């Protein structure tokens, strides 16, 4: 208790007891020492000769990237369209799979604790693997192409959408659910009338947000052969055609800007 009494009987209140105060100090000491130690290890392992001419290398790269070879853009429309399709269809797939999983994973809607742990396992395993790794695996299984990209994006999105949605379900107001149950509604009707309307804004927001992320993720899937603009990026880097790489960068940048704008507008409209 941070309350103590002095010898003359005045009660004293401090924010923390001195024990807690010391523990906090100790934690800071350990943290800062660890930071300095890591700093030293990283610095010892860095070849500073390469870092020293980083500025020259950087400006060299930029000079090779400019001016961008604008004619190349005409070959990029198709892959860019593929990229957007991968993101959109992948998001749709992910949402469709995540929706039931979230209801099974939320503590207040799950039919059984065992089902809940199964659903949580699905969510965690989907989240723990990056979409580019999913894409690598799927390209091996399905062969290169857009399909592998769509499924990779979909699999990664299950975890993201599922986790945020089940958290939203767990935070709903319980009394409307109670009221709908009290009418004699079946379980599915309780979900449909008591739970779903309450999580709808969160669900829509999460989905649009994930679509926005997926646009960015799908631009790199081509690096491992899963279709989209990443394929061209990889090829241009291999050819050292840096003036093409800069066109691709600008194109990705523009697309991401547009997707951000679209998702902001959609979210505003829904919520």
């Amino acid at each position, binding site marked *: 208790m941070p309350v103590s009494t002095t010898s003359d009987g005045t009660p004293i209140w401090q924010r923390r007891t001195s024990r807690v105060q010391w523990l906090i100090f100790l934690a800071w000491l350990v943290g800062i020492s660890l930071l300095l130690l890591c700093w030293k290890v990283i610095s010892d392992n860095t070849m500073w000769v390469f870092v020293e001419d980083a500025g020259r290398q950087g400006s060299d790269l930029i000079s090779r990237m400019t001016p961008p070879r604008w004619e190349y853009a005409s070959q990029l429309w198709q892959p860019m369209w593929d990229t957007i399709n991968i993101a959109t269809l992948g998001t749709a797939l992910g949402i469709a799979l995540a929706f039931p999983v979230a209801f099974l994973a939320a503590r207040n809607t799950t039919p059984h604790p065992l089902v809940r742990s199964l659903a949580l396992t699905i969510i965690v395993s989907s989240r723990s693997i990056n979409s580019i790794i999913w894409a690598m695996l799927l390209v091996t299984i399905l062969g290169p192409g857009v399909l592998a990209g769509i499924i990779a994006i979909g699999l990664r999105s299950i975890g993201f959408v599922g986790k945020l949605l089940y958290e939203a379900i767990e935070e709903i107001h319980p009394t*409307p659910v109670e009221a709908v149950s009290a009418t004699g*509604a079946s379980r599915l009707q309780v979900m449909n009338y008591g739970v779903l309307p309450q999580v709808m804004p969160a669900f829509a927001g999460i989905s649009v947000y994930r679509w926005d992320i997926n646009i960015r993720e799908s631009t790199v899937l081509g690096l491992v052969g899963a279709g989209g603009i990443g394929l061209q990026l990889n090829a241009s880097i291999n050819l050292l055609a840096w003036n093409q790489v800069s066109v691709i960068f600008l194109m990705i940048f523009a697309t991401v800007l547009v997707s951000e704008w679209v998702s902001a507008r959609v979210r505003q409209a829904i919520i």
Partner: protein
Amino acid sequence: MLTLSGVGKRYPTGDQALADIELSLPKGQVLALIGPSGAGKSTLIRCVNRLVEPTQGSIRLDDQELTRLSGGALRRARRSMGMIFQEYALVDRLSVMENVLSGRLGYVGFWRSFWRRYPQRDVAEAFRLLERVGLPHAIDKRADALSGGQRQRVGIARALLQSPKLLLVDEPTASLDPKTSRQIMRLIRELCAERELAAIINIHDVALARQFADRIVGLRAGRIVFDGMPQELDNEILTRIYGEEDWDSAADQAEPEGGEVVAAESVKHKREESTRLAELKPAISGGGV
């Protein structure tokens, strides 16, 4: 019509919320359940429709034992018990009509309710009820666009659309101003008379209870300590229900420890509330598909 015998409820945390409840409610009687916060009033009415599982005793509605029902049988039994809530418990993002029609959920199948294709008879009855509770203009509004009193009227219409035999009413006026409170109580009272409904009304406001109930039951620490007519309720009985307090004199004359008692009671009430919410999960999942 409704008979509770030896009903008790002990929460998993060990709190004995109700003990030895003996209560019998004839058809058409309006019973006000009064008592301090945390006395178990909410738990008692939730035991009746099994949103809270009683741990002891038997509850019978028209010769049907409610405590042993499960799945579909429990859902069918719930149809005949309409419930009205303190915070209205409407689904905010649904329209007034959808909220009222949700009172029929126990009668229609999932897909009909999913596509909102209720039988025309139900819809006509919903229109009639909205008219009766004084909200014919609000049908298309979203529930969160209404004022407190209007929302409670929607809650009442929803409960009545179930065609219940019994109304379970949990603090219907606690969030309303005095005038609206009286209007809502009068409405509930009239509707009970029109349809010969029995009702159990949890209420904090002793004056309202006296005025609108046929019978008053006082609950203290989970036990019935008074059961009688409104006019029998005097200061001695109020003390038996709520504890020591100077019921007649004004603030400057009252005993100083009154405030402390209130604070302790409200802490207890909060604790009971949270254990009740923890119990909600089985209520949601208990219904079966």
